[in-house]
Structure formats: structure tokens, C-alpha cells
């Protein structure tokens, strides 16, 4: 298994390939950001600089932290997000103040790209017509309406709480959900009002009415490029090329591009490339990966995450399990701690890791490592505790020293239980590793993430099916390992007991 893992991991860490890229571009996990990220990447490449695009990272903070730590050089951002969320304590009223504040962090802001993608509220056109709703303040008269907002909108300072206070909205049925699921919720009637972005492709596709922000609550969300100051000296030509995007993208242009990617399922790289060719006269080659090559690359990434985290977990958890069995009071503490780690939601754990470990495979491996501890520690301790008293007494009475008892008697006898724990950890790990895509670790989670975003079942299956197959494979592999590792005498006993 080790050999297989190592060979599979040969080129796996996505960042340390041959030739370190001079420009590392990031994008958030929604289509518009991915398209902009693609444009920036292709513009940088057009000057001959090797550029890398880490697409669909899970959330604004992930990108912001990665940029500040120097793991990204540039990503598309919105002035409203910077003002209201990332630098919300500073009260930066104009773009000049914003630039000064960013400069203190070693960051620069491009001129606006041209469109304002602000928040808006929308509902089905027919329903809005029936209720006579045109403006957000009209909602006050209909307290029974069901609201469904993206989780980010529910939490952020300029989101739902501020909007509710500003307009004195009375609605009680308000829930948070994934932005991409909100449209389906509207369609099915589960929710009636949701938050939109003003450049969303779905506004036309789903026949939605955008309610007018008559009190001008939502601030401007002008799209900009946020980049590290050191790019100016490190890759001046690439930067100059990237900045050519400024002022080139109108709102209607962006809605069109979003619609091509989201509704017509044209790959973002192609959408970006076509736009660059027609608007800037830059031709860039988009080479799509074959399905088999894609799956194989993701398999390597996924195996890398699972393999490294699992091996590290085994190395720590088995000794911890032995300790827990020999010192029961300490053991309860160890098991309690591992149990608490297990209850931390995986997404939260991943995000907590980012300030410590940055983005990419490292935070994902650290999180998977922590999740793998509990099943292995618990099964090791249980396997050792399950050894019959007369066997333990016999080993002691023979005059075997403690370490020899552990090595010759206790660990071999606990082997089936320990292996079962590792097997559990491996299977859980294969599933949880799909979340690694949110922090740029790649793997099978990447197509699942993209598939959910684009509402593309085929793409979701492209990640989900290999992930399920890998889980089954891992499980089967451990059955084989069990045959090799569990002593014959123990298997005989199990057989005679089951007879």
C-alpha cells in the first residue's frame, strides 16, 4: 500500500510542480469569480509568465488570508466586500481611503473592472406581480413571506441583519442556505425571496424580478483585482497585462459571460478566452484535460491527502491508544479530546487551519489527520482492554518485561481491533477529503464543488463516483491487510466461535 501511495503521490502536491509559477491567482467558489480568475491567469500567461489558478477556494477569508500570507498574488474582489467585511472596523468611506488601508497591508487595488455586482433581493416575477411588489420597502406589508438567504448574506455586517433594521422588515421565516440551492428553492416554492447578485445569470433564466433598493442600503460592490505590492517588482509585465481588464467589463457583459458558463455549461477557461480574444485581441490557448487524465490527477491528489494524513494519524494514535489502555485516567482525557475534535464541523476545522498552515494540501491534511485520531485511538485502547485477564496474567507471570509483553502478546492480539479502527478512519477520510477542495487541496471534491455550483449532476458524479469507489477500495484493501497481519491463531478462534 505504501508503495502505491508513494508512487501516486509523486507529483501530487499541486503547488510544487516543476517550475514554480511567478503569478498565483485565486478565485472564490462562484462562477463569476472563477471566470475573472481565468481571465487574469490567461492574461498573465500571455506575457510568458508561468501562472497558476487556484480556483473555487471556499470563502472570502480563505483568499484574503492566503493573499496576505503570500500564497496567492492576486484575486478578484469587490470593493464592498473589502469595506464591509474584510476591513469592516475602519470606516473607509471612499476608494482612496481603501487604497491607503490596503497599502499598509502590502496590498494594491486595481482600477474598477467596470461592473457593480451588489446584493439585491429577488423573487419570481409572477408572484411579485400578484402581490404588487416592486421595491424592498413593499415587503413590509407581507410578513408571511418565506426568505431564504445565502449563508454569507445571513452573517455579514451589510447582510440580512442590517437590511432588516434599515427597512424594518417583519418576516420571521428566514433561513440560511447555499446560494446555488436558493434558485431551486424559489422554483419549488420552498422560499419566496432570496438574495441575488446583480450580475447573476439566473435572473433572466428563472424569470426573477429584482426588487429596487429604494433606501440605498446595499453599498457599491465594484469588481477590482486585489494583488500583492511585490508583484509590481516581481512580475511587472504580467501585472500590466492583468490590469488591462480595468474598465472592460460592463454589468450586461458580465451577466452574459456568467450565463454562458452557468447555463450553457461552457468551461470558464473557454468563456474567459473568448472574451479576451474579442475584447482585448489576446489569443490564449485553452487546453481541456481528458476525462481519464482529470480523474487520474484528482485520484493522485486525493490519495495524497488521505495517505499522508492516515499514516501520520496511525503513527500518533496507536501509541496514544496504548497509553490510554495502560493509564485509564489519562486515557479518558485522550479519548475525550479526540472526541471533541471529532465534533468540530469539518469546514470550520479547515478554515481554522488556514491562518496556521495557509491554503492547499497542508490544512486539509492537518484536518484529516485530526479526524482520523479518534477511531484509531479508541479501537487500539478497546483491543488492548479486551485481552482476557488470564492471558495478561500469564504473560506477566512468565517474567516478560512490559515492552516485550506489548510487542509479543498485546499488540498482536489487539491487531484485528486496531486494523478495524484504521479502516474506519480511512473510509471516513476518503469522504471528508472531498472538502479539501474548499481550501485548494484539489482531489475528488473539486468536480463536486464545481458541479454543485453549476448545477451539473454529471460533474458531481465525476467526483462522487470515484470517491465512493475509493472508499470501497480502501475498505477492501484492509480486508486483505487483515489476512496478512492478523495472526492465524486469532482467525482460527474467530472461526471456531462463529461456528
Amino acid at each position, binding site marked *: 500500500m505504501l508503495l502505491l501511495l508513494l508512487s501516486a503521490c509523486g507529483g501530487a502536491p499541486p503547488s510544487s510542480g516543476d517550475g514554480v509559477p511567478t503569478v498565483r491567482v485565486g478565485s472564490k467558489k462562484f462562477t463569476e469569480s472563477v471566470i475573472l480568475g481565468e481571465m487574469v491567469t490567461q492574461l498573465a500567461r500571455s506575457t510568458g509568465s508561468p501562472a497558476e489558478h487556484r480556483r473555487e477556494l471556499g470563502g472570502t477569508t480563505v483568499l484574503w488570508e492566503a493573499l496576505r500570507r503570500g500564497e496567492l498574488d492576486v484575486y478578484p474582489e469587490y470593493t464592498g466586500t473589502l469595506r464591509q467585511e474584510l476591513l469592516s472596523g475602519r470606516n473607509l468611506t471612499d476608494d482612496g481611503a481603501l487604497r491607503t488601508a490596503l497599502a499598509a497591508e502590502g496590498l494594491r487595488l486595481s482600477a474598477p473592472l467596470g461592473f457593480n455586482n451588489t446584493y439585491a433581493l429577488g423573487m419570481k416575477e409572477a408572484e411579485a406581480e400578484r402581490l404588487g411588489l416592486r421595491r424592498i420597502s413593499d415587503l413590509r406589508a407581507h410578513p408571511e413571506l418565506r426568505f431564504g438567504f445565502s449563508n454569507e448574506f445571513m452573517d455579514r455586517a451589510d447582510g440580512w441583519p442590517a437590511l432588516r433594521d434599515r427597512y424594518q422588515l417583519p418576516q420571521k421565516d428566514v433561513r440560511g442556505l447555499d446560494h446555488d440551492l436558493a434558485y431551486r428553492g424559489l422554483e419549488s416554492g420552498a422560499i419566496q425571496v432570496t438574495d441575488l447578485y446583480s450580475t447573476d445569470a439566473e435572473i433572466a433564466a428563472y424569470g426573477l424580478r429584482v426588487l429596487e433598493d429604494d433606501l440605498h442600503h446595499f453599498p457599491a460592490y465594484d469588481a477590482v483585482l486585489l494583488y500583492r505590492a511585490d508583484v509590481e517588482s516581481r512580475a511587472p509585465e504580467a501585472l500590466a497585462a492583468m490590469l488591462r481588464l480595468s474598465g472592460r467589463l460592463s454589468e450586461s457583459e458580465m451577466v452574459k459571460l456568467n450565463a454562458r458558463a452557468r447555463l450553457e455549461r461552457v468551461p470558464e477557461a473557454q468563456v474567459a478566452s473568448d472574451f479576451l480574444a474579442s475584447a482585448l485581441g489576446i489569443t490564449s490557448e485553452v487546453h481541456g484535460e481528458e476525462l481519464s487524465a482529470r480523474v487520474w490527477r484528482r485520484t493522485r491528489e486525493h490519495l495524497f491527502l488521505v495517505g499522508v494524513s492516515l499514516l501520520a494519524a496511525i503513527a500518533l494514535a496507536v501509541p496514544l491508544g496504548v497509553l490510554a489502555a495502560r493509564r485509564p485516567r489519562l486515557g479518558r482525557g485522550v479519548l475525550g479530546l479526540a472526541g471533541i475534535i471529532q465534533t468540530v464541523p469539518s469546514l470550520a476545522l479547515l478554515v481554522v487551519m488556514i491562518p496556521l498552515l495557509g491554503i492547499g494540501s497542508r490544512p486539509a491534511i492537518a484536518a484529516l489527520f485530526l479526524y482520523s485520531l479518534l477511531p484509531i485511538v479508541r479501537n487500539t485502547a478497546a483491543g488492548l482492554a479486551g485481552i482476557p485477564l488470564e492471558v495478561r496474567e500469564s504473560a506477566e507471570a512468565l517474567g516478560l518485561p512490559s515492552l516485550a509483553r506489548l510487542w509479543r502478546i498485546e499488540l498482536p492480539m489487539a491487531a484485528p481491533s486496531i486494523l478495524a479502527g484504521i479502516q474506519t478512519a480511512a473510509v471516513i477520510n476518503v469522504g471528508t477529503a472531498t472538502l479539501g477542495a474548499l481550501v485548494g487541496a484539489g482531489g475528488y471534491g473539486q468536480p463536486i464543488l464545481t458541479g454543485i455550483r453549476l448545477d451539473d449532476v454529471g460533474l458531481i458524479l465525476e467526483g462522487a463516483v470515484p470517491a465512493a469507489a475509493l472508499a470501497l477500495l480502501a475498505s477492501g484493501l484492509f480486508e486483505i491487510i487483515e489476512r496478512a497481519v492478523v495472526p492465524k491463531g*486469532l482467525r*482460527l478462534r474467530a472461526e471456531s466461535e462463529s461456528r
Partner: protein
Amino acid sequence: MYELQDVSKRFGSTQALHPLSLRLPTGRTTVLLGPSGCGKSTLVRLLNGLLHPDTGRVLFDGKPLPLEGEALLAVRHRVGYALQGGGLFPHLTGEENVTLMARHLRWSSARTRERLEALVELTRFPADALARYPAQLSGGQRQRVALMRALMLDPDVLLLDEPLGALDPLVRHELQGDLRAIFARLRKTVVLVTHDLAEAGFLGDDILLMRDGRVVQQGGLADLEARPADPFVTRFIQAQRPLPGGGAAA
């Protein structure tokens, strides 16, 4: 070989052993006899340091029994131990069970093989069954493996805790005969725990009848029958008399 001085042991609120002083003479077989819970297993575990006394001390070969460390391991190498059911390691074959300590002490393979052959002959164990795992052995065979394991390092003392407890009567009877022959041949100091009066009389030079953590009477079986120290002794003997019409067990 052993001397106990005011030794007592308590588990929680139960006084498993009241303060007790006695000598276990070298080269003799002493039987600890009594109903279950009388403290006989506790006593035998104090002799190889599996338990430590709350009060008093255990002298082995004139010196206090070490509490832990290398010194205790060295004592255990001189004290063989086998208990009910054998306590065999299920992941090792019969042979591996017997030779485990020899391997750990890095005996030469010739020395190990020679000793193993002697033990197989002594315990009348079928040599072709040595490669079997405990799950593949009969109850009597398991007990013989446990005995060989206890004797492997040629100890001075043999501690046997209900060695025949889990066996059916025929096998038990056969092993009792074999054990008596082995004890006679080896002339080791043997401490044997049993609740069976006939077995005690058959195997023991000296019997310690115990009840509720105290020794009620010490002596030969004939002493116990002829001069009971206590009504309990008489009751214990009568309870194990063969039923009318039955033959003597030994």
C-alpha cells in the same frame, strides 16, 4: 523456599486474606484447598508478585520478594505459573507458547529444542500437535502446553491455580495421574490450588484448608479426616465424599 510473615490482602471492602504466617518447604507439594472465594488464588498470586501484600512480607529463598523491575522478572523466571484454562496466547502455536520465554532470553535453538523435547516427553504431549494453535487443541492438550510453558526455564517453583478446573472428568483423571508422576520426578517446590478434596489428597504432601481468607487447618488428608480442627473441616470433607455406591475418586 517461601516464608510468609503476617501477610494480608484486601480488595476494596473485602478482606481476601487475613494476616497469615507460614512456610512452604522446598521440594514439597503444598495444596491450597477450599471453596471458591476463600483466598487461595490470592495467596498464590502473592507468591509470584502478581499481587503485592498490604501488610507483612513474602520471603523467597530467604530474601524479600522484589516489588518490581528486573529483580522481580528474575524471580518470575524461577517460578513457573499455570492457571485454569491454560491462559495460552491464542495467536501463538503450542510450540511458540512453550518457547516464548526461551526466545525472549535468546536461548540457542539447540538448547530450546532439547528442552522442548524433554518437556514433550515429560508431559506426554503429542509432538505433532505442537504446531497447532490453542483453538485447535483439546482442553487436556491446552493444559499440558500450559504446564510445559511453566516448566520451560526449569524453575525452582511451580505454581498451579486450578490447573484441571475446566476439564471433563476422564481427562481430569488422566492428568491427575500424570501430574503426580511429574511432581515425583521433578521434586520441585509445588503450590497447587484446588477445591477438590480427592485431588488435594492425591497430589499434595501437605494440605492447607482455607476459608474466608484464613487457614483453617494444615496437615495431611488423614489428619484432616481424623482430627478436624473445626466443624467446617468436617462439613467440607463430607460434602465431597463419594455418593453411596460410587467408587473412590483416587
